[in-house]
Each structure stands twice: as C-alpha cells, then as structure tokens.
C-alpha cells in the first residue's frame, strides 16, 4: 500500500504522469460529445467546474501550504461577478474575465493583511473561515431593491436566476451550444491542469514549494515569502473564480449557497482524501466524493443527515490513520520503507487502548513489536 501511495505521488509529480493525465482529458474532450448524451455532458460540465475548484485548493494548500478554510468564497465571488457583469453587459466575454479578476483582487486584499501581517497557518484558516461566513451572511441579506449593481439585482437569499450563458466573443447573440459549452469547459480544465503543472515546474513553483518546506530558510536566501504566498493565494482565488463562473453556466443560477461552508468543507475533503501535495489526487477525490454524495441523495451544498455524518467520519478517520499528519512533506511521500508498518502498528496500538484490560496486553505487545521492527522514522511530529 505504501508502495502504491509512493508510486502515485511519483506519477503525479512526473512529466509522463502529466502527459498521461492531460492525454486522458483530451481523449474525453473528443469522445464524450460523440456519445450524444446531452444529460451526461451536462453532468460532466458540473464535475469539471468542481474539479477546477479542487485544483485551486490542491494548489494553494498542497503546494503553497496555505490552509484556506473558505475557498468557496472565491468560487462564490467569481460566480456573482459573472452573474452581475453579464446582467449588465449582456455579453459574456468581459464577465468571464471578471469572474477571475474580482476574486483575485479580493484575495490580494485579504492576503495582504494575512501574509504581510505574518499570521500563522491557523490564524489564516480561521480568518478565511470568518470572511467566508461574513460574505455568506452579507449576500443573504441583499434581497432588497437597494442592493442593485447597475442593472443587476443581488436578490439576497433568493439567488440570481436565468443568468446568460457564454456567447462567442464579441457576438452577444451567438450563444454557445451545449456541445461547445462542454468543449469550452473541458478545454479550461486541461488548461488549468497543464498551466498549474508548468507553474509548479518553473522557478516560481519551486520557490513556492521551498517556502512551504521551510519558510525561514527561503527568507534567509533572500526570497520575499510574503509575496510568494500572496501570489499563490491570488492565483488560487482566480482559479476558484473560474470554477464559480463555469458552475453558473451549468445551472444558470447562483445563490448565497455558493459561499456556504459546506462547500468550503467539501473542497478541503476532496484534497484531503485525494492526497495533499498532488494535483491528480484531488481530482479523483473530488469525483469520487461528489459521486458518493450524489448517491447519498444530496447536492453539493445540501444538508442531509447522512452526508454530514458520513463526511465527518471520513475526515476524522483520514486524519487519524495517517500518522505523520496529512500535511506530509515531500520527504514523507518519497519515504519507502516502514511507513505502512508504522501505520498499522499505530492502528494496532490505538486499538489496544480501546480493548478491555484483560486482552489489552498481547495486542499492545504485538503493536510495539511492529514498531520496534520498523526503521526509525527520522522525523518528529509536524510543524505548527
């Protein structure tokens, strides 16, 4: 199992892995429309917007080390920016770009306070959470007539409906067909994935990972870590905004639920389950978990009992069974030997604790023997 995880991470970070993943996406780009199943295409477009959202979180958390607890705020801002702009302009080209620019500007503003104020990871998580909540409450309260931007009303908790879909650039009467919308969305997904890969391979990307690895050393080398973190945060926000605008083109509707914490929570879970520090993992995590919640019978921001209960369990178990913590360093990923054994030993030991006193000793001894066999881990604890 450990080999599997290691090879998965190798595959994800390797160049041929990138080619394979991008290749699969390109194949889907050409094959899916041929199947001539409009409903399937529509579903896939929904998944694509969510995958792009997952990628934004995979980037800022897994590579930038920024734990943003409110990635949904940029998703929502992007969606609202598009909806309001397209309502005013009656044309989608500029709104499409605004859907990325507005969240990016907001992230720049918020990020300035957080990163130039040198707040630590935990404070960043709490502040992003609080800002997301504030936006959610604010948008919910804008149902009155006075909340109108240009020709577009914000509509509060009712949400904005019948939002115009994309049209061909410059020609507001030529709306994109369902197939073209799919091509466009899939093309954007491929561009996002490949773009992030290129970015991570560049000097910028390598410094970003270095900052995550050891902020102090990066700074002692002369890198302005505040700026790098801000840049990562802003890029992540723009990508999340793109996802928000694409999701509107799926359902022609946006409501304050786009800002909802349950969405923010799901994004984290996609990355967590898929593997922090990879791009492919969160894509898979996103698709699998969306499908699970679909089967459980609730939508993306629904509040059914089972989704909460089961997702809560998933999260707790995932944190517990990964002993080095879920923010692994690259070292952990590439570490071959002993990890699986240590994981199992840890599980055995904690099991022993739960057993009645009479049967505890042999189980604990077994766990300790496993630990004893395992090579020294060579690292102690996690940062934070």
């Amino acid at each position, binding site marked *: 199992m450990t080999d599997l995880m290691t090879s998965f991470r190798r595959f994800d970070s390797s160049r041929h892995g990138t080619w394979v993943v991008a290749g699969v996406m390109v194949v889907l780009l050409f094959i899916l429309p041929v199947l001539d199943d409009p409903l399937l295409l529509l579903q896939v477009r929904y998944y694509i917007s969510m995958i792009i959202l997952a990628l934004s979180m995979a980037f800022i958390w897994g590579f930038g080390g920024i734990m943003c607890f409110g990635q949904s705020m940029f998703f929502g801002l992007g969606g609202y920016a598009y909806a309001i702009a397209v309502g005013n302009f009656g044309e989608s080209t500029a709104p499409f770009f605004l859907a990325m620019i507005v969240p990016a500007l907001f992230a720049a503003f918020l990020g300035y306070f957080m990163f130039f104020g040198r707040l630590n990871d935990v404070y960043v998580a709490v502040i992003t959470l609080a800002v997301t909540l504030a936006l959610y409450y604010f948008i919910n309260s804008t149902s009155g007539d006075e909340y109108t931007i240009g020709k577009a009303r914000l509509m509060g908790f009712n949400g904005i409906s019948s939002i115009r879909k994309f049209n061909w650039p410059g020609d507001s009467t030529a709306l994109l067909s369902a197939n073209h919308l799919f091509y466009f969305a899939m093309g954007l997904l491929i561009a996002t994935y490949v773009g992030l890969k290129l970015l991570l391979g560049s000097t910028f990307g390598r410094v970003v990972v270095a900052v995550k690895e050891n902020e102090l050393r990066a700074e002692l080398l002369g890198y302005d870590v505040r700026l790098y973190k801000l840049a990562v945060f802003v890029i992540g926000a723009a990508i999340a905004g793109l996802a928000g605008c694409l999701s509107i083109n799926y359902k022609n509707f946006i409501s304050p639920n786009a800002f909802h914490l349950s969405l923010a929570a799901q994004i984290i879970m996609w990355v967590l389950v898929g593997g922090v520090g990879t791009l492919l993992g969160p894509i898979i995590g996103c698709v699998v978990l969306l499908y699970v919640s679909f089967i459980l019978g609730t939508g993306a921001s629904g509040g059914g009992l089972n989704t909460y209960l089961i997702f809560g369990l998933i999260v707790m178990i995932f944190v517990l069974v990964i002993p080095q913590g879920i923010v692994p*360093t690259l070292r952990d990923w590439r570490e071959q030997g002993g990890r699986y054994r240590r994981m199992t030993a840890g599980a055995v030991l904690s099991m022993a604790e739960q057993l009645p006193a009479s049967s505890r000793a042999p189980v604990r001894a077994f766990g300790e023997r496993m630990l004893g066999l395992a090579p020294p881990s060579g*690292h102690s604890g996690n940062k934070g």
Partner: protein
Amino acid sequence: MAENDVILETRGLTMRFGGVVAVNNVDFSMKEGELRCLIGPNGAGKSTFFKCLTRQYKPSAGQVFFRGADITSDITFQIARRGIGIKTQVPSVFDGLSVHENIWLSARRHHKTRAANKITDQIIERVGLGHATKQLVGRLAHGERQWVELGIVLTGEPKLILLDEPTAGMTGDEVGRTTELIREINRQAALIVVEHDMQFIKAIAQKVTVFHHGQILVEDTMINILSNQQVRDVYLGKHAV
C-alpha cells in the same frame, strides 16, 4: 572597499523577552574580511544576537549597520539580499527537497536558470556532497545536513557569513574539512563564527569576542582570551565542570 572599512556595526543592540534581557546594549563592530569568533557560555545571547542581525527577532532597541547602511528596519529577506548569510544552529534546510534542489534554490536567487544549474554543481562538489545529489536532505546524517546548509549559504556569495556552531555533529575528519573551508571562504567574505569547540576556535580564530549575560565581556586575540582570568571564571571555569 578598503580592508579597514567596517562591515558590521551594532549600536546599543538590545533584545528583551518579557523580563529577560537576552542581548543587552551590545556595541559590536567588525571589519571587512575579518574572521571573528564569538564564544560564551550557553544562554550568553550569541544565537539571539545572530537572530537580531538577520531580523528573525525584531530588536527591542538599538541599531544595526551593514557596510555603512542602517539595516535596523530591514526585514529578513532584505538583509539576506544585502549580503548577509547565516547558518543557523539547528540546520535550517529544505528537508523535503533533494541536495541539488536545496542548493539550486539558493543559486537561482542570484542567477539565471542555466547559470544556476552550473553553480549548483560546483558548490555540491565544493562541499563534497557529489554522491548525494539526488538524495532528500531530510534523510542525510546530521553532519551532512550541516554541509548542505553551508553550501546553501556559500551559493549566495554573501559578504558577511554568520555561522552558528558549524561543527556541531561533525566527525573529527569533517571538522578538519570545515576548518579548511572556513579559511577558504574567509578570502572572499567576512565571518562571525559561534562555537563551543575550543580546538576548532584555536585553529581558525583571529579575534575573539566573549559574550556573557547578553553583553560583550571582552574582545581580544585568542591567546589573550585564554589567559584572561575573567573569561576563565565565567566561561572556561564553568565549561570545565
């Protein structure tokens, strides 16, 4: 840049933590090209002094000048860009990255990608880690990680290098090589070295500054320091116990 120019000067440098004064009103000065050793018992404030110089701590009071410029209000990365490199007491390296990546990140700060690749290879040779280029730094022995950090610092071609216990965790052989390397580095840059290893200090020292209770106790040549009764009392005396 004449030999006699002052490279680093502090005036009234003070660092307080609550009620504890770790660095107390230190006036320190050294010249271009100098190799200065900093000694003193544990808790004398040597590492804190280094952290104030590189703005890992914001000094409570006082000023720092580097080559005539007031760098008191500079922040860490700006100080690094001015040409002060530091090897911290606990090696601060990118554990999750390879030796090559570690050095490369330092080289790339100053050079274009291609030049950075070339310099990286040179530095790896120089610190003798050619056999471990692709290895993750986190998996190297403590001594080797020290070398990686030295390599990172050297790559930045700083004008002043602060070394906090460079030989900690090294074998006798490695200490010898470090001595060589430090002499070599000193031809291009000024150095401040904090060490506990007296043999090592004897081997490299020109002038020695003794810290005690956050203050400069005495500043002299190694020979005079060794015969200084005051120093024996506070440092060597205790150390011998």
